[in-house]
């Protein structure tokens, strides 16, 4: 879901760039509170690299269309939501500058979508589920999978709104929203599968590297 240059008008690009700058500033300020000895800069770099790699791996979602991982919820469950935003920013910057993936003038919009929007919806959903589910690994999989799944159509919906407000080409907004949602529900399934696989594997092999678990119910859960 990388918006190229030209889709959105200058006002919308500027507006989302301002939002993105604000969100990233807050994320940089709050991220260090989520760090630990194990989950430090090197691990954060590795998570960001994994998100980048996942985004390269487009998977088909129907004849003629593909999807790719966004990775926001995956990162959030591993390193925390604010740190995840920093990682997503790193991915998007390198993609836009080095690989021309996503327009440079659209980078604010892309960060708003794959950063705060995806991570906020996914993280809130994940924490809500964590509160009511037991502290078992299957519950971690279910909560992170569901949160990751919904984060994708959420971002698709916000893109549809952005395009309705500031799209350069005037098109039927509801038609765009409907089409974006239907495809991104399927792409969300892929996001969920990848997220569950990585998060559960990490939990099994290196539980200290999963910030989002244990759940709110069992903070004193012994991880080692």
């Amino acid at each position, binding site marked *: 879901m*990388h918006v190229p240059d*030209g*889709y959105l008008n200058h006002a919308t690009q500027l507006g989302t760039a301002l939002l993105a700058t604000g969100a990233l500033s807050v994320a940089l300020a709050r991220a260090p509170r989520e760090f630990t000895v194990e989950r430090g800069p090197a691990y954060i770099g590795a998570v960001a690299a994994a998100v980048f790699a996942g985004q390269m791996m487009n998977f088909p979602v129907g004849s003629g269309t593909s999807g790719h991982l966004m990775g926001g919820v995956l990162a959030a469950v591993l390193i925390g939501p604010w740190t995840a935003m920093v990682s997503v920013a790193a991915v998007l910057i390198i993609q836009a500058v080095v*690989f021309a993936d996503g327009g440079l003038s659209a980078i604010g919009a892309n960060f708003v979508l794959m950063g705060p929007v995806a991570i906020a919806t996914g993280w809130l959903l994940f924490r809500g589920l964590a509160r009511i589910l037991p502290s078992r690994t299957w519950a971690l999989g279910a909560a992170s999978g569901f949160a990751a799944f919904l984060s994708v159509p959420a971002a698709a919906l916000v*893109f549809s709104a952005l395009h309705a407000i500031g799209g*350069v080409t005037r098109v039927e907004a509801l038609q*765009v929203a409907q089409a*974006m949602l239907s495809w991104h529900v399927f792409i969300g399934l892929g996001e969920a599968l990848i997220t569950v696989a990585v998060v559960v594997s990490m939990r099994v092999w290196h539980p200290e590297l999963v910030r989002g678990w244990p759940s709110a119910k069992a903070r004193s859960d012994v991880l080692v």
Partner: protein
Amino acid sequence: MTSESSRSRASGGIVGLLVLALFVACVASAAASTAPDGMAFVAETAGFASSARDSVAAASPLAEYAVPNLPATASTAIVGAVGCSLVFGVAMVASRAASVFRRSRDDQRGRK
């Protein structure tokens, strides 16, 4: 568990994740679908795809995740390695900087 031993235990996870990232980016992505992604597809059918403009970065030698004049496998391997390394570096440096800045700000305010 001491800080030292927990850090060395975690480094196994860090290395594992990096190896996975490099494998996916350099090797597996060669098998990735080349069909347009959901947004591009919707843009095409809804009629706003033509508003897309090439990025200024399209002049980059690695634009569109390909190295020109190289066979696909070599091109993918290089793109994957360069991308993963750069993202790893940027994210790591940004995190370290944020952490250092926060600690100095907390020290200034007399907080632990």
